């Protein structure tokens, strides 16, 4: 894409209307283009006005639920990744998570299995973290946590899943490899296993057979994770038998 082409993407960028790849390319351009960065700031602020125009009065339960959740969520440290442009670090990390996945999988595969991987964790944690931090700080924070523990299991159809939990971060990451495409109109949904009751923990991208996902929500008292096939968009509670239930590693 030419520089002039890139420059016209400020609007699409501010509206989150680019694909991941285009977004990455545009952000590299943004780093060297102060006038674009200024325009992006203004257009992002303009887009937010469109958002503000559809304000609703939220139900009171929403506030109660959010306040309950934040009480158990650890806050991130302030150091922002050196990011030019107007997007927040959170967005940047979301975009990079697929790349982090590749790094994570490569690490797991390269070390030839989980037992070895766990054994080597102490040596390679820092090295992995260095790579992943640039790519996906959030995933990396879980993977590199001193108390991070990994467990791997087989899913149906030859797929494998690795579940990494950090109780200090109160977060978990699920890395799937070789997942068959879900049936049309279905997605893989992840669940925290709270003593047998399943709590929604996010969806996997149905277009990818290999993906690392930060489970949404705190680990809390969960003992593990389940994965089910659900209608697109996910369900509030599982509607099918789990493909797999994995326990968090404890040792």
């Amino acid at each position: 894409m030419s520089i002039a082409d890139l420059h016209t993407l400020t609007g699409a960028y501010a509206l989150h209307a680019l694909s991941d790849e285009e977004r990455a390319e545009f952000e590299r351009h943004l780093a060297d283009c102060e006038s674009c960065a200024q325009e992006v700031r203004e257009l992002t602020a303009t887009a937010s006005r469109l958002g503000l125009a559809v304000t609703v009065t939220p139900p009171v339960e929403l506030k109660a639920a959010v306040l309950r959740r934040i009480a158990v969520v650890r806050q991130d440290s302030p150091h922002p990744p050196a990011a030019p442009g107007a997007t927040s670090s959170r967005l940047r990390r979301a975009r990079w998570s697929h790349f982090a996945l590749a790094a994570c999988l490569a690490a797991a595969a390269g070390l030839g299995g989980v037992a070895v991987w766990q054994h080597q964790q102490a040596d390679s944690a820092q090295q992995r973290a260095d790579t992943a931090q640039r790519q996906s700080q959030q995933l990396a924070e879980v993977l590199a946590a001193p108390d991070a523990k990994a467990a791997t299991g087989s899913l149906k159809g030859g797929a494998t899943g690795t579940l990494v939990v950090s109780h200090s971060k109160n977060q978990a990451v699920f890395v799937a490899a070789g997942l068959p495409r879900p049936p049309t109109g279905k997605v893989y949904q992840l669940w925290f296993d709270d003593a047998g009751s399943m709590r929604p923990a996010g969806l996997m991208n149905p277009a990818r057979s290999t993906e690392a996902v930060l489970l949404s929500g705190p680990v809390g008292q969960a003992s593990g994770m389940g994965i089910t096939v659900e209608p697109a968009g996910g369900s509030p509670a599982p509607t099918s038998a789990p493909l797999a239930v994995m326990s968090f590693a404890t040792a």
Partner: protein
Amino acid sequence: MKEVVHISGARSAGPDLPELLDRVARGDQDAFSSLYDAVGGPVLGLVRTVVRDPAQSEEVAQEVLVDVWRTAARYRRDRGSVMNWVLTLAHRRAVDRVRSAQAATEREHKAALLEQTPAFDDVTEQVESRLEREQVRRCLRTLTELQRQSVTLAYYRGMTYREVAELLAVPLGTVKTRLRDGLIRLRDCLGVAG
């Protein structure tokens, strides 16, 4: 720090959001509760407009608000207002949700997508948000039809510019420039500063 950072039209009363967010970043849950009162409605409204499904919208809104708590220390005043920061997070999350659902299922019927302007009918009793809504609606009318359709399909429906181009049957380059021109015109109409 009494800088007023409301990006809404009404700039009078209202809490000092950067100050509140500073306290939130230090783990102050009471400050978060006050911040929630200011941003909860805008977050849910935006997420609901993009995601549509009420249960999913509430789930995504919760994730956004927990993100605000978690990443409060990363907010930078020089990048824009607190409301802008929060709504950018909310929009991104909502778009991610819509796109992950969309990959597997053919999205709503084309006709349904084309009624792209949101309902604007969820009445909020606050005068401030009513004024905001009227101003935005007035400014949207100053756009050309193609600019307005492109901007609202992208923002309120979470579509990529490629999808917008396909839906409106216009070249990609045209949509790119209409998104930019349309937002620039809105920016000037709304008097948004960077």
